[in-house]
């Protein structure tokens, strides 16, 4: 029907492949966007080579935030942690295949912010992680 809600987004929102919580895990982090109540938790397991062995997200929020979390999990499994640290805003937009205004961008980037705060082992997730 329209550009922003491409089928892929609705699909990943309605039928996420990576929703869940890994226990045990090597990395865990959660944050929310108080403005719209989006909330994302991410758990990861790494292998002995420093690659992501498995990853899951959990949370609630809008289609953009949840679909981008699901797409992000899909993308990082098998990748080296060092590579994940390099991911940026454009990578997320490429996965979603859309352009977003400033407000929705926050929704789209929440999962990346949570992921990076987790792999860097930070105490707090900051917007500067995804700039």
């Amino acid at each position, binding site marked *: *029907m*329209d550009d*922003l*809600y491409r089928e892929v987004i609705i699909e990943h929102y309605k039928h996420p492949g990576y929703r869940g919580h890994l226990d045990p895990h090597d990395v865990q982090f959660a944050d929310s966007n108080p*403005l*719209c109540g989006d909330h994302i938790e991410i758990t990861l397991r790494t292998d002995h080579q420093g690659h992501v062995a498995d990853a899951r997200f959990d949370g609630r929020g*809008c*289609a953009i935030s949840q679909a981008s979390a699901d797409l992000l999990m899909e993308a990082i499994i098998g990748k080296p942690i060092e590579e994940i640290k390099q991911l940026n805003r454009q990578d997320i937009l490429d996965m979603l295949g859309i352009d977003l205004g400033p*407000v*929705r961008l926050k929704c789209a980037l929440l999962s990346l912010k949570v992921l990076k705060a987790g792999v860097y082992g930070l105490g707090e997730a900051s917007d500067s992680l995804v700039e």
Partner: protein
Amino acid sequence: MLDVNEIRKDFPIFQRETKPGTRLIYLDSTATSQKPLLVIEAMDAYYRRSNANIHRGVHMLAEEATSLYEEARVKIARFINAPSAHQVIYTRNTTESINLVAYSWARANLKSGDLVILTEMEHHSNLVPWQILQAERGIELGFIPVTEDGLLDLDEYKTLLSRGPKLVSFTHMSNVLGTINPAAEIIRLAHEAGAVTLVDAAQSVPHLKVDVQALGTDFLAFSAHKMCGPTGIGVLYGKMELLEAMPPFLGGGDMIKEVKLRSFRTNALPYKFEAGTPAIAEAVGFGAAVDYLSSLGMDAIAAHEHEITEYALERLEEIPGVNVFGPSAQHKGGVAAFTLDGVHPHDVAQILDQDGIAVRAGHHCAQPLHEKFGLPATSRASFYLYNTKEEVDLLVSGIYKVKELFG
């Protein structure tokens, strides 16, 4: 009745298409209203012909600018039936007006343990200034609860009043529930209990006939941008004896009568509270906005909005999965905040936007109220003098499209 088709022609923005072939359906006037051409042109003409700094200026432009600035004040005073234009203080917006009371009146009059009564439906602008004072001074905050159907619980209010509050500060109309609170009664009861009152009239002055003398309130705050006027200007109205007794807030040019190196004497009202070069063009635009609304008549505007709102509530409630918050149309201004089961309000708003329908999604600066109802966010459609039933129909079809997409 309003001739809405004629009115729409006064607003240049309605000629806009959001994309080729899609016209703008603006349902976000509670956030800010659109501006009629005469307001835009009043400011334009000010800058093209009369622009100068005001007061103290002897030359022709300075005198013209001063007259325009002060005439607007007189118009605004009449619009709210203030006894005198000296009681109309220009600020940036409702938020600054409330902060002015919090910094000047409240810091001079409230001490640790003093009770300030607010409500659970307040906008952040009428919460945070008092929370700052709570942290700084140790004042206490009490909240009139909101009932399930979105009204203030006046019994609980009376209980709070028995604790001897110093101030009752409340919204005249909720920007989420649309509830029009019984302001005159709240004020009367507050005064009986010996409290001073502040009305957050950000949503009422644009939509209803508000008469400060009939209300009897001590303070009243509103913003131009929500009532067909420009951004950057608002008003604090206050009772003369309170304003006169209050210490100054911002210091600088214009608010003084005399300055020495180490001391100053304050100017008369309203200038005492207007430090520095004010929003002159904006005052001129504000005056034009008030003229515009007055020419249509606030009662006619309110009646039109009521009709649209009744219709909208009826149509929205027919949609399976839609829940509208707040009271029935009888107690409500032109606001419909709603949720759609299974779809996040941001997604609703964004999908509507693709058909040119502008609604807002989020907590609308009333986070505690949303929390009370267990929601992080709602979508909100709001109506003003230029909205039509046809636009409500388009909103309803838009929501059906959203349902289909997420079906």
